[in-house]
């Protein structure tokens, strides 16, 4: 009896969640089969789906002599593009965040350091990372270096700002407790300030990765010959709107995946935190 009720509720919940997407897809399908738009401009959802699978599938036929089965299955264009973009985001964010974290800790912890670094940083911060593209290409040429530079800049400021705020907001009662237990300045910094500021730092990292993700797509459209950003721009030149949309869809999935991973990571790192559900 109760089973049936909860089953009915489940069904209604799923139906409720699917209603809008299904309606949108139907409307889109109708729009594209009606012939109002040419398929080069707006291809149908079915065509996009077909194209997405084709994009995913390996380009060459399976040949056990040259490849192992696994590497053949993963040799599709979509996967190599996704991995290229993902790799750039990860490396770029590690560079940007890796520079911002220590600087933010120092700036949050010391008034003197803050006074020295704050004015130039406040001046640079409003410049959108995208505006660095010309300079990045002049400095680093084409390929990975300018892309990583851009992503690092995109990730740098959110991590920096949040780290500073996080350190400033550490409740002084923890500092007192640590000093009372005999902690010196370095210990206070490492064992108290850093973990106490962690909720802010992780929030900054999440924003930073989001910015880095925007930057990787833009950088690939302009300065690199691989990755999802490059691929959708290439598809546009051939007027393959289905592949453009399939690529965008993949970008969305990758962004969602990165965000989910970050969510998991911060839930684990902040398992001690009151505000965190786990």
């Amino acid at each position, binding site marked *: 009896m109760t089973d049936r009720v909860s089953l009915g509720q489940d069904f209604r919940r799923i139906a409720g969640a699917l209603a809008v997407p299904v309606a949108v897809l139907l409307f889109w399908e109708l729009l594209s089969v009606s012939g109002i738009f040419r398929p080069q401009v707006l291809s149908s959802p079915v065509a996009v789906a077909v194209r997405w699978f084709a994009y995913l599938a390996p380009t060459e036929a399976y040949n056990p002599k040259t490849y192992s089965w696994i590497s053949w299955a993963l040799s599709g264009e979509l996967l190599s593009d996704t991995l290229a973009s993902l790799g750039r985001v990860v490396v770029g964010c590690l560079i940007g965040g890796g520079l911002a974290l220590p600087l933010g800790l120092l700036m949050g912890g010391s008034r003197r350091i803050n006074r020295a670094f704050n004015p130039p940083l406040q001046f640079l911060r409003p410049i959108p990372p995208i505006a660095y593209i010309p300079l990045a290409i002049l400095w680093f040429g084409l390929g990975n270096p300018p892309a990583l530079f851009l992503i690092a800049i995109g990730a740098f400021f959110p991590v920096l700002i949040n780290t500073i705020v996080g350190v400033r907001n550490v409740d002084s009662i*923890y500092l007192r407790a*640590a*000093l009372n237990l005999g902690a010196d300045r370095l210990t206070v910094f490492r064992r108290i300030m850093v*973990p106490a500021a962690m909720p802010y730092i992780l929030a900054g990292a999440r924003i930073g990765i989001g910015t880095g993700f925007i930057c990787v797509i833009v950088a690939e459209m302009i300065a690199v010959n691989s990755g999802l950003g490059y691929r959708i721009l290439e598809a546009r030149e051939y007027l393959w709107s289905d592949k453009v949309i399939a690529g965008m869809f993949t970008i969305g999935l990758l962004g969602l995946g990165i965000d989910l991973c970050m969510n998991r990571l911060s839930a684990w790192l902040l*398992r001690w935190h*009151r505000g965190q559900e786990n």
Partner: protein
Amino acid sequence: MIAIAGVSKTYGTGMQAIPALQDIHLAIAPGEFVCLLGPSGCGKSSLLNIVAGFVKADAGQVLLDGKAVTKPGPDRGMVFQEYALFPWMTVEENVAFGLEIRGARPQDITPRVGSLLRSLGLAEFRKRYPKDLSGGLRQRVAIARIMALNPPVMLMDEPFGALDALTRRTLQDEMLRIWDASRKSVLFVTHSIEEALYLGTRVVVMTFRPGRIKRDIHIELPRPRNTSGRAFNELKREIEVLVMDEQARYSEAERLGRPG
């Protein structure tokens, strides 16, 4: 032996100056349990913070075994009303922290922490984070955390103020047990006259603005103390009069818009 010698403290200057403490003299021998009573804002926390080394006195000094105290240190273990446990550390890690940063070897830390947790009834909560503990358990951890360093002096600022009556009594008994076994000097701030009388070998009543020592009463009642006994309640009434006088001056200050 911890001695407070002529300590004064004024916050602010000019018209806004608040004379929080004035010429406080108080010596606490090992094995003495001194309870500090007084209305809100009379400077109890200020005094504790000066002894702990968090706040500098304007005049006078604090001497631990004859040596002047200049900064916070583990020889004066402090228990805060707000618990102040490190929320990112488990119960076990909180208690081990002091030993760890002092450079103790892991093989020495583990048994010491284990036995402390057991003696305070915390063994089964070892791996929990503070957010998952009740107030009473948190305060046990806070006590265990400073006990790990075996300080000669314990400073407690209304440690049980936020607890319900039953938990409070349990922790008071626990505290008495620890103090009795270790004969530390304890300086314990409370708002509750009954708590002061239940715990203290001495009850010190402070005046309000400037904060001075009004009375220093030795409590000779036998232990365990019976809170409903006649002697207990006679003393309680006597101290109540002293405290209420100061409380009236506090209320007056509050009415005039200079609350504590």
